[in-house]
């Protein structure tokens, strides 16, 4: 452990704004890409299901 206390850890020896903003932006971007990928996937599958349901009801055999 490089820090004596948690508040020291947060202060980063006076470099807190720099360290935390760099890490924060990185974390934010990583999380955002994952979130975006999930939303994209869900919407796509929703759309595909809607399309399949429409096709099935046209054929007259709704599952």
């Amino acid at each position, binding site marked *: 452990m490089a820090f004596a206390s948690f508040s020291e850890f947060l202060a980063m020896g006076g*470099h807190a704004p720099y*360290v935390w903003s*760099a890490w924060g932006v990185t974390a934010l971007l990583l999380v955002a890409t994952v979130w975006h990928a999930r939303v994209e996937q869900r919407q*796509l599958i929703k759309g595909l299901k809607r399309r399949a349901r429409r096709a*099935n009801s046209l054929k007259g055999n709704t599952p």
Partner: protein
Amino acid sequence: MWAFIHKLGSPKWFYGISAKLQPWFWAAAALLLITGSLWGLAFAPADYQQGNSFRIIYVHVPAAFLAQSIFISMAVSGLVFMVWKIKVADMAAAVMAPLGAAMTFVALFSGAVWGVPTWGTWWMWDARLTSMLILLFLYLGVIALRGAFTSRDSASRAASVLAMVGVINIPIIKYSVDWWYTLHQPASFTLTSRPTMPTEMWLPLVIMVLGFYSFFIALTLMRTRSEILRREASKRWVQELVNGQMMKVPAEETR
């Protein structure tokens, strides 16, 4: 060999195999990134010169590595697509580009922030930062070119060619920027180059780099799967897949 390549190229096959691979990469990414972050932020010693601002290296360097690697993978995918007409390769290249641009942005941002305590300014025309900035423009070019075509087939080919042209130029650009930098700023001090880094400093760095790579692979697999569904929506196997899922409880698509 041929059979294998074409099997690899079948979207359906890829969709199946990527479903099996994906969880492992997500798990590895989570594990490595958490370990690396804790270690790098809390346990690695502070730098004797830069103090704690040095901890930015643990996001800056992995992002910079990944940004370059993604461009290379994009070009390789483009080559595979052009030579063997494997569509999955192009789908992967298409989903890689935004992540690559995001990584380049992270490298640039963390570099700029790091510059404040080190150089006392937000921006220095440092060799690494300058190359990163050019790389960002290359990414934006590929993304813009792909978006500019109305025909997706043409867009795929054009983006592949541009990615290959870009990847040939990246080393030339890097070399010339380094050369330019040393000419104009002799004996100045760069962010990350240091003679010796103790083990407890570089080990977390290695872990972070591996974590970023796992993350990249996992995300690319996931988004390529979405892209496959989007492009193959009218294919029989996708419709069967969707029908099969609707039979079951509307369970969420596994990731």
